[in-house]
């Protein structure tokens, strides 16, 4: 019986080893800097690309844009020189990311480091796509490092490189454990992790500790990804997302144990391989048809993470929990009626006046804004980082298609689907109310992966890769369908339907924000203990907010289903959820205006079209990379997003023009205000430039974020 599966188990050693190596790096950086780096897989991915390029022709390709990135170093690279180059390169990369990105964010809220590391991940993915000749893979011969001949191990055939990879990871684990236990540097790292103040007072520099550990971690990640290439291949997106199972392993080790993280990583790899082997076996008939086989394999590790996280969580933080300061400011919505009339009016004119291409972009913008609005509610107002919003949208999207195809009329089907999404949101919120900060981000990410792999990928639910189509929405004999029969011409009437839903949603969110519900949300975001002391049921507030936000996400999913000819699972992949959060942050995560700007910036939204139209599509070349950098810069310097920068600029302008009732003594400062106002204006311009990028990626194979 065992023998039947031992092949699968051993085949999983390779994948498990790379997960373990990344988990080691995550544990190391967390222990030394307190940061969880979502871009860790992407960093390893870049190093591996650089290694194979160098090994092939001696060219070092740097992760830069605009300036020449290719340096010819050696005419005849050898295995040794190439590996040496890879080690040095990863060390430099680790040092640079620590110093430039994570060191400034040491004391920032979890949201800022999540967004910054997402920005780094997007940037690295895009730089690899731009700078490496991956499109024509034939130009690079990927020369593997380890021998690939099969050997017999425990009576089963397995390739040598898998076993050697495990040896590498185990050696790294032993080395790190020894480093931490027996060296002065390890002692200092453990000390700094225990008490940063204590460390500084005895003369230990936390920056030096963070820098060195970040370098070591990146070297391990880089080498592991280089070694895994012959087994798992190398791809900017897939390889970057190896960080997810690695997070699972690291979390099982409490983000502090190297040995447990490694064992968990290897275990996850073998378990995945075993599940795959078991489920593809013809005799495995008890698993229902609708359960996606590969999904089961992906979902198991994240479900483990979820259990670990929730088990450790607590309903209220204890006295020692540091309250995140410096959250993005959330101003009370003002002039709501005026804004509504202006925006609805302008959009209506645009829907009627635009040609089909622009009308399509406008519809995409509105649907994306709706999804962003759901993120504003849960993450901006309540401070709960949710990466599951896109999955809620997906659930609603396929639900509406299924129930409508079963004969439910349009508005009822849409309502049912939205309610289903809301219910799923509440179910997700029940355990999520017990964790906070970075842990919540990971928990919701895990649930998003579980939903994607088990539900959205289910053939019976979503039609699998082929996708499904919704029937035309007809209400009281009026056809709201997006396309004229047979032709794809984006009818304005569908645009008005979307506009109506978006307007009502925005108004309701504005009302909630101005009423006591919104105050309670902001109170929970600001300080959970004080909120409880003010009589607020913190868990119930969070669950209520999850319900509202998943309801809005569900609406977005329903509209998305009606707006495309075929809805496929690709629209709801996890990377899209990360991009959606990042765009909303860019727009301004704690205001309705921020959601609308995020919609404009969305891929295939208005900005993309304008940018590509103005430059014959050339604007798309660098914009994704710039947007990644922009996210990092925004996370560090402008947590209020574009709307915040605009608001500040407007305030400065107002002050310098003498508009508004300023106390007399402040007129002295008018000159300074004008100067600062000009500064703010530059900020807006820079932000808008970055935003442009985020929307207008070339994005082949890049899923829509909506």
């Amino acid at each position: 019986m065992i023998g039947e599966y031992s092949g699968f188990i051993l085949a999983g050693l390779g994948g498990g080893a790379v997960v373990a190596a990344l988990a080691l790096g995550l544990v190391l950086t967390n222990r030394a800097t307190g940061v969880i780096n979502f871009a860790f897989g992407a960093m390893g991915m870049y190093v591996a690309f650089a290694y194979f390029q160098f090994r092939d022709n001696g060219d070092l390709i740097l992760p830069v844009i605009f300036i020449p990135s290719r340096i010819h170093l050696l005419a005849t690279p050898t295995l040794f020189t190439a590996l040496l180059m890879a080690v040095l390169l990863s060390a430099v990369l680790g040092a640079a990311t620590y110093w430039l990105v994570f060191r400034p964010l040491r004391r920032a809220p979890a949201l800022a480091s999540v967004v910054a590391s997402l920005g780094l991940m997007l940037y690295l993915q895009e730089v690899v796509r731009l700078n490496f000749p991956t499109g024509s893979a034939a130009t690079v011969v990927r020369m593997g490092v380890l021998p690939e001949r099969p050997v017999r191990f425990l009576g089963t055939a397995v390739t040598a490189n898998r076993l050697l990879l495990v040896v590498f990871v185990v050696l790294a684990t032993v080395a790190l454990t020894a480093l931490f236990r027996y060296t002065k540097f390890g002692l200092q790292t453990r000390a700094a992790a225990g008490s940063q103040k204590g460390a500084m007072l005895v003369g230990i520099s936390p920056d030096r500790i963070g820098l060195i550990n970040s370098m070591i971690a990146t070297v391990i990640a880089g080498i592991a990804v280089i070694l895994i290439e012959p087994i798992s291949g190398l791809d900017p997106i897939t390889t970057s997302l190896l960080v997810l199972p690695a997070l699972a392993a690291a979390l099982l080790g409490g983000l502090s144990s190297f040995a447990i993280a490694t064992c968990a990583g290897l275990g996850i790899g073998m378990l995945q391989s075993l599940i795959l082997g078991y489920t593809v076996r013809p005799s495995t008939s008890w698993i229902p048809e609708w359960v996606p086989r590969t999904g089961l394999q992906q979902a198991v590790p994240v479900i483990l993470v979820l259990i670990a996280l929730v088990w450790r969580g607590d309903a209220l933080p204890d006295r020692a929990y540091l309250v995140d300061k410096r959250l993005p400011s959330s101003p009370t919505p003002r002039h709501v009626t005026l804004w509504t009339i202006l925006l609805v009016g302008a959009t209506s004119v645009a829907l009627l006046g635009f040609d089909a291409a622009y009308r399509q972009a406008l519809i995409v913008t509105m649907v994306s804004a709706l999804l962003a609005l759901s993120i504003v509610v849960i993450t901006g107002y309540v401070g709960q980082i949710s990466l599951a919003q896109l999955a809620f949208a997906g659930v609603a999207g396929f639900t509406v298609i299924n129930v409508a195809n079963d004969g439910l009329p349009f508005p009822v089907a849409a309502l049912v689907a939205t309610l289903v999404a809301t219910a799923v949101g509440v179910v997700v919120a029940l355990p999520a109310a017990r964790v906070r900060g970075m842990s919540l981000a990971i928990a919701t990410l895990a649930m998003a992966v579980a939903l994607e792999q088990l539900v959205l990928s289910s053939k019976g639910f979503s039609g699998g890769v082929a996708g499904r189509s919704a029937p035309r929405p007809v209400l009281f004999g009026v056809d709201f369908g997006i396309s004229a029969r047979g032709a794809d011409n984006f009818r304005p009437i569908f645009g008005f339907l979307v506009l109506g839903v978006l307007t009502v949603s925005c108004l309701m969110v504005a009302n909630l924000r101005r009423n006591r519900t919104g105050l309670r949300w902001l109170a929970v975001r600001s300080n959970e203990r004080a909120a409880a002391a003010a009589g607020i049921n913190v868990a119930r507030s969070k669950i209520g907010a999850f319900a509202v936000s998943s309801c809005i996400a569900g609406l977005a999913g329903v509209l998305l289903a009606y707006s495309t000819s075929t809805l496929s699972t690709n629209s709801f992949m996890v990377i899209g959820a990360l991009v959606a959060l990042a765009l909303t942050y860019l727009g301004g995560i704690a205001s309705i205006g921020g959601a609308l700007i995020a919609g404009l910036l969305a891929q295939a939204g208005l900005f993309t079209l304008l940018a590509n139209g103005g430059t014959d599509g050339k604007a798309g070349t660098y914009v994704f990379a710039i947007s990644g950098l922009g996210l990092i810069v925004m996370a560090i310097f402008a947590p209020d997003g574009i709307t915040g920068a605009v608001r500040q600029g407007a305030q400065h302008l107002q002050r310098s023009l003498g508009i508004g009732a300023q106390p007399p003594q402040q007129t002295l400062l008018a000159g300074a205000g004008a100067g600062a106002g000009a500064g703010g204006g530059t900020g807006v311009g820079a932000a808008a430039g970055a935003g442009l990028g985020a929307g207008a990626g070339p994005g082949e194979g890049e899923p829509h974020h909506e």
Partner: protein
Amino acid sequence: MSEVVLQVRDLSVRYGGVLALSSVSFDVADGQIVGLIGPNGAGKTTCIDALSGFTTPSARNPSFSYISFLGRSIDRLSPQSRVRLGFARTFQSLELFDDLTVRDNLRVAAATPTWISTLTDALWPKRKVDAAVEEVLELLGLDRFAEDRPEHLSNGQRHLVAVGRALVGKPKLLLLDEPAAGLNPSETAELSKLLRSLPDRGVSVLLVDHDMSLVLGVCDQVHVLDFGSIIASGTPEQIRSDPLVISAYLGHGSSGVDEPAPGAGSES
């Protein structure tokens, strides 16, 4: 005798291996201001945390009521449920909602939500004027700052906002954790005037502070905590002359001076 609002019996709290509060018992009667004093680390904040539901008592006998409020055991209630029964508390570090204006800080605490209120809040655009909020703003002289954020206020005003947030829900019992910390003498005098007016408004008070002149000046009854236990109880006059109290603050006078100085608690 007036009615007992809060009855604490045999309350113990353990943090790790340390017994932070050890079998503490006392009462707060209706309309009373009761003071809780003691050196730093004596367990005062722990006591407020336990009373308001933020810390779980270590000994838990389900048939015994450790904390009773208006004759009802509240040992198992969550913090927010205790608030709804008529508890209110402040924090040593104030813990104001920095994102909200002063008025909104108070509005948050003013009413209990229902499941329906989320729905009505979504549909109804108008901000309702809340009489209770406006009344407290006026009482504390905060109406001029109602639309300012707490960060723009002085330290004394911020303390008043914290007290206001606790008062706005019309509590029966107010637990104040070092409300005078960092206040200047005139602000402290204002505070003590305010505290004295509370019993007339139907609010009983448990006051934790280091400012001896404040505590001894406004309280009807004072309990002295040291190393988690109550070492003395009595009227301010009795406490002032209690040798145990003096030694708790000044150390056991085995060396040095014969007549210990009656200094106040002194941490910064």
